């Protein structure tokens, strides 16, 4: 024990006689080090479940439904099956609901069911650079873990991988201490489906309608996935069906290699060390996309520092790697391939909007792919504008006052009133985002777009005011969410820019529609204008000049004729 510290401790005693315990507790470095332990991911997220979207009973139910539906859609599409899903919510106690999600997907071999539903950070999509709804291998397992934590009940999974295969029902929980599945029972059962998966989780939950409801989530899912047929049974209600209006599946996406731009230095050094390429030239061409011989040579030449095309990658020193990294950032390299991303496409966005939203005009724009931090992504936007049944304002016949229509459920009538801000539908890889709108790059992109130039009202720093729904979809091999609960897109500069460009394309089309509408209205106004006011010119002239009625009528008729003719030019 060093003298200096002892001295301090004596001081401590002297100055706080009430706390004699202060001296008795010294631990050595070895004692302390011995207590270091690994922490299981499940334990970590159990304690921090708000990071995953399970912060309240209301939100937890939505998160669980989302995770299950996203997984089902991914599986169907990967297997090339046009998806048909059913979502059922049943209230089982005052604060408890059971969620049942069933798909016609390829099913899961029963040996894999445990890990997929019962282990966090286990999935097929994390290591691929390709677009999918789920990404981190956490979601559905976390839903099961939440159910288990709040009700003590295990989850139930049924799966069947083909017509001649058995349908297997597994009841299981997650052992959080070890982050491993624990199977309670396994039974072969009768199931009237050729293939598919069914998951049931009971949890503490609350159910509500509105803009952030499960109903809204499913409706938006139907909009962004026009190839999906979805049957939905809300608690205590009749089944509703969102029917597909196309059977075209989204184009298949392929895995890609990382794009050189945006690969950080540290990552580059790790890749140099791990590569099996035996020359720098080969390394660049093989480990990255969009790097051909010419680009690779240019990069190496620009890097300098003794690097040549034949430099052996694993022997490149850190300083040289640094120069290489700089050279890569400076080099001109084409955008990453787009076949790793599946846009919905302008045609299908419009189909989807038409299917679920009543409006006067539908517009869509799909941008070419771009890249942020080495990840390709693509923005598309859509607009549904106008309200066929009027803009939500009507005039009271007795008082002549304008009054608002009674509010209807937002799920029924998405287009808002003329004096309300436009409504946003945000999607990431076809998945609706319902929370944290104000923190989202999509919101910022819309606010940052000048809608006034397209004929709309827009208060400073706000959404445009119009009877309008704005649809924005970001498709990416890696969507940058601001938090693990996947609620808002991070505002990378490149993403914001693309959002604005897509909105601008839509805005221009919308602007010409609005201008046309205004022109038609003006034309009509002008006609009635002439008929209204010319007689008064007659009356005035008659009063001043004492004309006869015949003289007056001649003058007004002439004026009307001349005025109408003048409008042709």
């Amino acid at each position: 024990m060093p003298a200096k510290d002892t001295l301090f401790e004596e001081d401590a005693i002297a100055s706080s006689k009430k706390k004699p315990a202060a001296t008795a507790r010294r631990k050595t470095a070895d004692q302390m080090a011995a207590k270091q332990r690994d922490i299981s991911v499940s334990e970590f997220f159990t304690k921090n479940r708000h990071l995953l979207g399970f912060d309240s009973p209301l939100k937890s139910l939505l998160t669980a439904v989302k995770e299950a539906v996203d997984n089902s859609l991914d599986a169907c599409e990967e297997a090339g099956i046009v998806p048909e899903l059913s979502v059922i919510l049943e209230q089982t106690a005052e604060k408890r609901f059971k969620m049942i999600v069933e798909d016609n997907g390829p099913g899961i071999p029963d040996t894999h069911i445990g890990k997929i539903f019962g282990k966090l950070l286990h999935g097929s999509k994390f290591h691929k650079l390709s677009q999918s709804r789920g990404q981190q291998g956490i979601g559905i397992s976390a839903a099961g873990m939440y159910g288990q934590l709040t009700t003590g009940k295990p989850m139930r999974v049924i799966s069947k991988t083909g017509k001649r295969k058995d349908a297997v029902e597994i009841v299981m929980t997650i052992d959080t201490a070890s982050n491993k599945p624990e199977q309670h029972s396994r039974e072969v059962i009768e199931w009237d489906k050729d293939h598919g998966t069914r998951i049931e989780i009971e949890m503490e939950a609350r159910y509500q309608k509105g803009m952030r409801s499960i109903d809204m989530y499913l409706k938006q899912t139907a909009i962004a996935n026009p190839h999906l047929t979805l049957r939905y049974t809300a608690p205590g209600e009749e089944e509703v069906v969102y029917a597909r209006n196309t059977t075209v599946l989204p184009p298949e996406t392929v895995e890609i290699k990382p794009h050189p731009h945006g690969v950080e230095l540290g990552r580059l050094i790790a890749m140099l060390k791990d590569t099996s390429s035996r020359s720098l030239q080969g390394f660049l061409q093989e480990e990255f996309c969009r790097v051909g011989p010419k680009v690779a040579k240019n990069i190496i030449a620009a890097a300098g520092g003794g690097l040549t095309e034949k430099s052996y990658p694993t022997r490149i020193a850190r300083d040289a790697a640094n120069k290489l990294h700089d050279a890569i950032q400076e080099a001109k390299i084409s955008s990453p391939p787009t076949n790793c991303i599946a846009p919905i496409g302008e045609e299908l966005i419009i189909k989807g909007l038409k299917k679920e939203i009543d409006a006067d005009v539908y517009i869509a724009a799909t941008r070419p792919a771009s890249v942020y931090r080495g990840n390709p992504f693509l923005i598309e936007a859509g607009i549904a504008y106008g309200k066929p049944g009027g803009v939500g304002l009507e005039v009271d016949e007795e008082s002549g006052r304008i009054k608002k229509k009674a509010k209807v459920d937002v799920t029924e009538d998405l287009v808002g009133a003329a004096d309300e801000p436009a409504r946003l539908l945000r999607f990431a890889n076809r998945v609706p985002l319902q929370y944290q709108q104000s923190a989202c790059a999509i919101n910022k992109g819309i606010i940052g777009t000048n809608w006034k130039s397209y004929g709309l009202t827009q208060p400073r720093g706000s959404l445009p005011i119009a009877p309008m729904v704005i649809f924005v979809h970001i498709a990416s091999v890696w969507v940058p969410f601001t938090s693990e609960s996947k609620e808002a897109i991070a505002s990378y500069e490149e993403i914001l820019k693309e959002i604005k460009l897509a909105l601008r394309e839509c805005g221009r089309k919308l602007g010409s529609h609005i201008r046309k509408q205004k022109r038609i209205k003006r034309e009509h106004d002008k006609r009635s204008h002439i008929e209204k006011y010319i007689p008064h010119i007659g009356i005035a002239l008659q009063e001043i000049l004492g004309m006869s009625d015949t003289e007056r009528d001649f003058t007004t008729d002439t004026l009307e004729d001349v005025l109408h003719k003048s409008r042709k030019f």
Partner: protein
Amino acid sequence: MAAKKRKKSAAPKRMKVQAHSRTTEFTDADLKTVEVIDKTAKRIEKEINRRILPELKFPVRALSNVTYDKKVGYFQIGTGTKSRHMSVNTVKNFAQTLRLMAVSKEMVENDDFATKREAYYVSKNWGECKFNEQTESDSVMDDIEALASREGLSRESLRYYPEEHGGRVAGQLTIVDRDKRSGEALRIDCTRMGTGAYSVPHSVEHLEFETKAKFILVIETGGMFGRLNEHEFWADGDCILVEMGGVPTRATRRFVRRLSESRPRKIPVYAFVDCDPYGIANIYRTLKVGSGNAAHINKFFCVPHAEYLGVTPQDIIDFKLEDACHELQKVDIKRAKDALKNDPFFMSQPKWKKAITQMLKTGMRAEQQALAKWGLNFVLEEYLPRKLADKASFLP
């Protein structure tokens, strides 16, 4: 019986100015007004019948078409003219303009008048052609006024009067008006109004004046007017007192203008207002040179030979009013700086530039009433006599 009444009231269907039939002679202005209206209507009718789209020409009422010439002494409207062609977009405006002109002619013929508010209500019987807001009828009226001003006619000649009436008058003056019914001359002796006063009517064109007063003192506040009147300052000073009550109304300005020009040699006009940017740049400036955005009427309404008696920034020092002053507010400072930088009148007067700069430097403003610090009647026993004895202390 109530039912019967209601029936009776259903009668009137079309607006008709049903004044007492005119007993008085047409004045020159009246004849001119009828002529201008007739001429305009006639031209329009002709153009229509020749299948030409008619147009109306108005002086441009923008600041860009306003000039200030030190010699003329007031803001004048320039020669800029805008044509309004009849088109789909202007047909409503044309109809309303002509109908208001028709009403004007009818009022001249009946020796009647209408306030701007009344004119607005008259239109309520025009069906679809009616004005929805008084701002609309005011704007059309401004157009007609501008058009008529080219012919030397004021809005009052057109028989449209503002709502606000004029200020009060007392002192060495007899006003000659006429009884509308009998035509008899009415002589109003303003030395015999006691503690009360004569109140200026909406229109003063028909008034005549008999006076030997040495000057006209126009006063900003009613309180100060009351003090000077009750103490019969007009007798000591041999003058006429006119109360403005803030920025003077058209009627008051026209009254002072006509009164001051009622003798072969103009009667001097001295303004006595608060020493603050509002008193100087709004009240006094409007009285003297008119306003830039109503330049087409200044030739009738402003009093270019008016002078500023006080309170001047130098008076604050000379009469030791510092501790009865208030600090200039932001809006005051802005107004004063604006006068120095943008107002052609103040910019053309070095004395004013100096005075306003002095005010800005001290950061102080003083009201007329501040003189009461030295006693209630200091103003009439000390201040005014001393000022009047030293006209060099006036500002232009």
